Structure formats: structure tokens, C-alpha cells
């Protein structure tokens, strides 16, 4: 009897194992971006897809996640090892070229262009092919203290002081303006004016907070400035053109602000969280920051000191126009997908108006066209400028989706921070960046 029980147990265990294996092979397994609103939104979208009457049992979506820390390094190792543990996986604009050898292009729904627009679709393209369905869009807003700017605009004596400071530090007497009309010089003048070390009457300790840590994401934040000066990575012929006046002036502006104490002393170790903490403490007048910070910085519970006092606009204008770096997160198809057909069907559905509205209503941040965003504007007013800014000001550097794009960002982060820290001259930094980029992008 005991022997039979043991055999039965073994048989049951084997059957269960086989059932689990066949189930996991049948389902569409998606590796998503863990934690935060992206995970919540993807869960809601996959549940909606699974609940659809025309979704076959074999096409049901299962989600898997691993930690955010080193996510892209781990993903690269998995893909390079030929994993088939997931069918669709997370993609980011700056890493598409790196992952493209391990992925297959996909087809989106027929109305994808009406849903996203060209600028957003291009964040998931490489070599002219669509490698991913866009899910979330990241860009930069300029966050500023409305109360401080309003007070400045209403005070003649303050305006005069503002003009004196801008003339002394920038060589030009400027007058305060509405933030939506700022040039980068106006931004710099405001940052200097609201710095206590320069203007003892300033209500804030610093005029701005620059994220200057040697980190690739910080270079993305910086990029909107050289781009508005006409800067790019490569020209039309594919030559590296980073050693340009556009980059030179932009790098000098950051250094001028840092050297004159307009940004916190430890800015060379600052990234997203540190900058938010500085702004949230009420000691900074304006800053460039990712759109993802809007929720926290306008929430009275998380940042009570500045609650109700924060305005957001697109980054300032330069001689060549107004720009904001954009990059997208999305889902792409693993070359070794076990359920390729099912994965393709889910990706296609994700780019339909039905799916993006579910995704948006559940916390995601897709970049949507005016027509589509209008359907969710009531619940998600923050998505309205996202689509607007993306289509009007969004840019991706020429070469920004190449196989070595991440390495280029890393290289620029290293060399530019070396200049800002005073460890090398501007010429040295740009020469090294140019030669390093030529090596990487050859």
C-alpha cells in the first residue's frame, strides 16, 4: 500500500510538472519593467487581453519581472545566451541597436500611426524596422516655482537686480520672462538670480539643480541644451560632429552655473532622486527633470513644501529651436520566442486604441496623439503635454538607437563630467569624446 501511494505521488508530481511545462510553452510570456506604474499598467493591459473572448487559450499572457537594478545588463546576458524564457521583452530606445541581433521586427496594428504619431513610433525603430511596440514615453519637463517667478515678474526692483546679475555673469542684461518663453540664457539668468551666494535676497539657496553625476541618464537630461544649439552626434554622412560650438556652449553653460554655485555643491554626485529631493525641499527655483517626477513633485503628500507652487513647461528654447530628449520603453520580440505567433498577436493588440487607453488609465505613460489622448484626458491630464511635447519638441540624436548608443552615453558622461569637475579642459573633453565615438560608431 505504501509503495502504491509513493508511486501515485510520483505520477501525480510528473503529471503536474508536464502540465505546468506545457502551459508555460503555450502562454505568451512577457518580461516587463518591474515596479512602478509601468508594471501596474502592463498587468491591467494583459488582464484585459486575457479576458477578451477572442483570445485563444494558447495566447494568454503571463508576466515575469526581475529587479530594475542592472536590468538591461541582465537582459543582455539572457538574450546573448539565447534564452527562450520569455517571448516579448522590454526594450528602450537607447538599447534597441544592442538587442536587435537577438530580436525580430514586429508588426503593429493598422492604426498605430494614428495612435502614436511618427515621433513616438521612431523611438522603437532601428535600421528602418519596427522592433517594439511603444508603451511608455520619457522626456524632460522644466519644473519651476510659480510663486517665485510670479513674485519676480511683479517686482521692479527685483527685475533690475536680475538684469544686473545676468549682465555680470552672462554678459547680457536680460529681463525676467514667463517660463514658457525662456531661452536657455533666461534659464541660466534665473538660476543665477535665485542663488543665495550671488543674490543674498534670494528665497532659495540655489537657482537650479543640475544632475551631473557620471551617469548616462544625466547626459540625456543635458542633451536638450546642445540640441537646441543645433548639436547632434552624427551628421547626415555619419561623421561624428560632437566637437561643435553647440556642444561647447552647452557644456560651458553647465560649468558656469556649477562654478558660480547656482546648483548644489554635490551636483557631481546628483541624479534623479537627489535632484528631486533638492527641488522638493523648496531650495531650488527651476530644474530640468524627467516627466516621471511630475507625480511626486506636484503631490502635497510627498512634497508638502512646494505643493501647489510647481509649474511645468517644455525645456527652454535655443538658437535652433526648442527640444526635449525623448526615449521610449516598449516591448519587442525575442528571436528565440517559444510562442512567436501568440507574442506577435499580443504586440499588435497592444498598439490598438483599445489597449493604449487601458494602459494609460492604469498608470502607464504612453505618448499618444491628440485624438487618442483626448479619450483619457479627464483621468490622465498629465498625458496631454506628453504627446504634445513629443510631437513638437521630441528628438532622438542621430545614432541614438545604434548598437553602441548606450556606450556613447557612457563615454559622454565620463568625459563631460571630467570637464565639469575641472579635471580636464573643454578641448580635451570634446577631443576624447569625438575619438571615442568614432571608435564606437565606426
Amino acid at each position, binding site marked *: 500500500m505504501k509503495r502504491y501511494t509513493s508511486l501515485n505521488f510520483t505520477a501525480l508530481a510528473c503529471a503536474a510538472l508536464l502540465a505546468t511545462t506545457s502551459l508555460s510553452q503555450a502562454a505568451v510570456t512577457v518580461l516587463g519593467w518591474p515596479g512602478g506604474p509601468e508594471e501596474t499598467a502592463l498587468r491591467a493591459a494583459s488582464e484585459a487581453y486575457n479576458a477578451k473572448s477572442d483570445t485563444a487559450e494558447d495566447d494568454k499572457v503571463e508576466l515575469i519581472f526581475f529587479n530594475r537594478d542592472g536590468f538591461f545588463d541582465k537582459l543582455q546576458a539572457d538574450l546573448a545566451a539565447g534564452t527562450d524564457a520569455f517571448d516579448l521583452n522590454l526594450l528602450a530606445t537607447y538599447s534597441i541597436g544592442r538587442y536587435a541581433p537577438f530580436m525580430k521586427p514586429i508588426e503593429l496594428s493598422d492604426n498605430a500611426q494614428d495612435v502614436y504619431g511618427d515621433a513616438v513610433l521612431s523611438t522603437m525603430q532601428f535600421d528602418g524596422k519596427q522592433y517594439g511596440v511603444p508603451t511608455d514615453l520619457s522626456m524632460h519637463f522644466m519644473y519651476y516655482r510659480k510663486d517665485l517667478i510670479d513674485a519676480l515678474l511683479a517686482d521692479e526692483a527685483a527685475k533690475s537686480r536680475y538684469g544686473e546679475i545676468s549682465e555680470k555673469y552672462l554678459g547680457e542684461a536680460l529681463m525676467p520672462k514667463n517660463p514658457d518663453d525662456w531661452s536657455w540664457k533666461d534659464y541660466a539668468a534665473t538660476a543665477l538670480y535665485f542663488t543665495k551666494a550671488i543674490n543674498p535676497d534670494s528665497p532659495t539657496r540655489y537657482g537650479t539643480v543640475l544632475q551631473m*553625476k557620471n551617469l548616462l541618464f544625466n547626459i540625456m537630461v543635458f542633451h536638450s541644451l546642445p540640441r537646441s544649439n543645433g548639436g547632434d552626434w552624427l551628421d547626415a554622412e555619419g561623421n561624428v560632429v560632437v566637437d561643435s560650438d553647440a556642444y561647447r556652449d552647452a557644456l560651458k553653460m553647465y560649468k558656469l552655473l556649477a562654478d558660480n554655485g547656482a546648483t548644489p*555643491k*554635490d551636483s557631481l554626485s546628483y541624479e534623479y532622486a537627489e535632484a528631486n529631493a533638492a527641488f522638493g525641499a523648496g531650495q531650488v527655483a527651476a530644474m530640468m527633470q524627467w516627466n516621471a517626477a511630475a507625480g511626486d513633485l506636484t503631490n502635497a503628500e510627498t512634497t508638502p513644501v512646494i505643493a501647489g507652487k510647481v509649474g511645468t513647461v517644455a525645456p527652454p528654447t535655443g538658437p535652433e529651436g526648442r527640444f526635449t530628449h525623448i526615449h521610449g520603453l516598449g516591448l519587442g520580440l525575442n528571436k528565440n520566442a517559444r510562442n512567436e505567433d501568440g507574442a506577435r498577436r499580443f504586440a499588435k493588440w497592444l498598439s490598438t486604441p483599445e489597449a493604449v487607453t487601458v494602459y494609460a488609465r492604469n498608470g502607464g505613460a504612453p505618448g499618444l496623439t491628440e485624438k487618442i489622448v483626448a479619450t483619457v484626458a479627464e483621468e490622465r491630464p498629465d498625458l496631454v503635454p506628453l504627446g504634445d511635447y513629443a510631437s513638437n519638441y521630441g528628438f532622438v540624436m542621430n545614432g541614438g538607437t545604434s548598437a553602441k548608443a548606450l556606450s556613447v552615453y557612457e*563615454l559622454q558622461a565620463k568625459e563631460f563630467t571630467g570637464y565639469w569637475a575641472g579635471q580636464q579642459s573643454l578641448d580635451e573633453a570634446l577631443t576624447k569624446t569625438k575619438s571615442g565615438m568614432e571608435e564606437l560608431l565606426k
Partner: protein
Amino acid sequence: MLAANKYENPILLAPMVLFLLAFLGFPAVVDIIYSFSEITFETLRAPKLSGIGNYQKVLADPEFWQAAGFSLKFGLVTAALECLLGLFLAVFLSPLFEKRTWLLAVIMMPMMVAPAMVGLMYRLVLHEFVGPLPYYFYIWFGDSPSFLGSDNIFTTLVIIETLQWTPFAFLLCYVAYRGIPAELREAASVDGAKALRMLWYIELPLMLPTIAIAFFIRFIDGFRVFDNIFVLAGSGPGGSTTSMSIFIYLAFFKLGKIGTAVAASMLLFVAVLCLLVVVSRLSQRRASA
């Protein structure tokens, strides 16, 4: 019975040997092959042998030498500070620890924290707007130094590392100090030796081998530092806080230079191995003297 004894040791050792071969031996062999190959993420399974090119590239790379210089300086300074502080605590607080042994557990606590968590903790502690340290600096002095600015970052990192790992050096020194036979101290005392002379001529020479071992262990740990520095400062402005381990990580994952990274890791391995052999020889020579 004899036959049983003959096979007993190999059988008992087999699981450990198999484990080491699978989890250390195999990756080590793969690393050695990669270090002599042209290799990318696309060709991980089909590396193309290319001789000593990767080693030549690494040895000609100024960033490698900058990282080696940082690691060497960091390892030497932190190991020296930790040993000095550990020795000081072991000798001068020994009477206290004898009476209150539970204090040993308290002093060991920093070692229990994961280095990455220590880096994260100090990101908060040193932040100008949320950290307690700058807060009190502003209250007391009206200003706060730039703890993580390019001028002070090395000092800050050394202090953080020293605070976390001094307990390790202390523990070894304390055990060595307590292990000195009481009759030696009594004899020296009868001969009129005061505390300082006794420390210099009796206790320190007896503790020296332990201090040397503590120094070398801490030096090796400091030389290959990664977690706390990477979490706190990354590779630093202009790569100024890039240790050897950070150099290898960046080359491998961020720049995709797998051959360079693996060759650098092989060089690091050989350097550490040589150091361990020297330490081991010195210990043996001293033991046999």
C-alpha cells in the same frame, strides 16, 4: 578496514571538488579562453582566438592604469587606517571589552551591513537637503562641505570604508592581544617596564603577524572594492572613482568590451594571487623561525 580508509577521503571530498570545478573551475576556464579571444555578446558561444591582443590593449589603456592606481591607493590607505584604528581600539578598550563582552557584538555591527546598503545609506546621510550631516553643519557653521564633490570624494569614500571595516581589523587585533600570555606581561612589569614600553617591545611584536594578516586581507578587499563606491559615486566625475572592479564592470556591460574586461579580470586575479602567495610564504617563514 584499510580499503575503506583508502577511499574514504576522496569520496568525502568529491562533492566539494565537483562543486568547485563546476562553479569556479568552469567559469575560470571560460574566462581564460575569452581573454585570448575576439568576443562580443553575439559570439559568446563561438569565441575566435586572437592571441594576447586583449592583454596588450588593457595594458596600453590609460583608464586601466588609472583604475589600478585608484584601487592601489584606496586599498593601502583604507587597510592602514583600519588596522591602526582596530589596533587602537583593541589595546585601549580591551579592559572594557573584558568586562562588557556584549559590546563586541555592538562594535561588529557595521560589518553586518551589505556594502551596497552602506553606499545607499550614505547617499541619504550626506545629501544636502535630506541628510543629517549637512543639516547640522548648516546649523552649527552656516555652511556644509561638499562631501561628494570632486575635491573630497576620495576622503569621503575612505572614511566610509574605514568606518565599516575597522571592526574586522579590531577583531583580529583583539584576539591577538588577548592571546598574549599573562606571564610575559608580569615578567616585563617586574623588570620595570611601563605600559608604553610594554606595548612597544612586548605586545606589538607579538601581535605583528596578526596585524600583517589583517592588513593584507583588508588591502585585498579594498583593492577590489565595488559595491559601496558604485552605489554612492558611480565611477566618479571623469572616472575619478573607478576602481579595478568598476573598470571591469563598465568595460564588460556598458562598453561591450568583453575581451578587455576579461583580460583585466585575469590580471587582477594574477595580482591578487601573487600577493596571497607572498603573504603565505611570509607567514610560513615566520612560523618556522
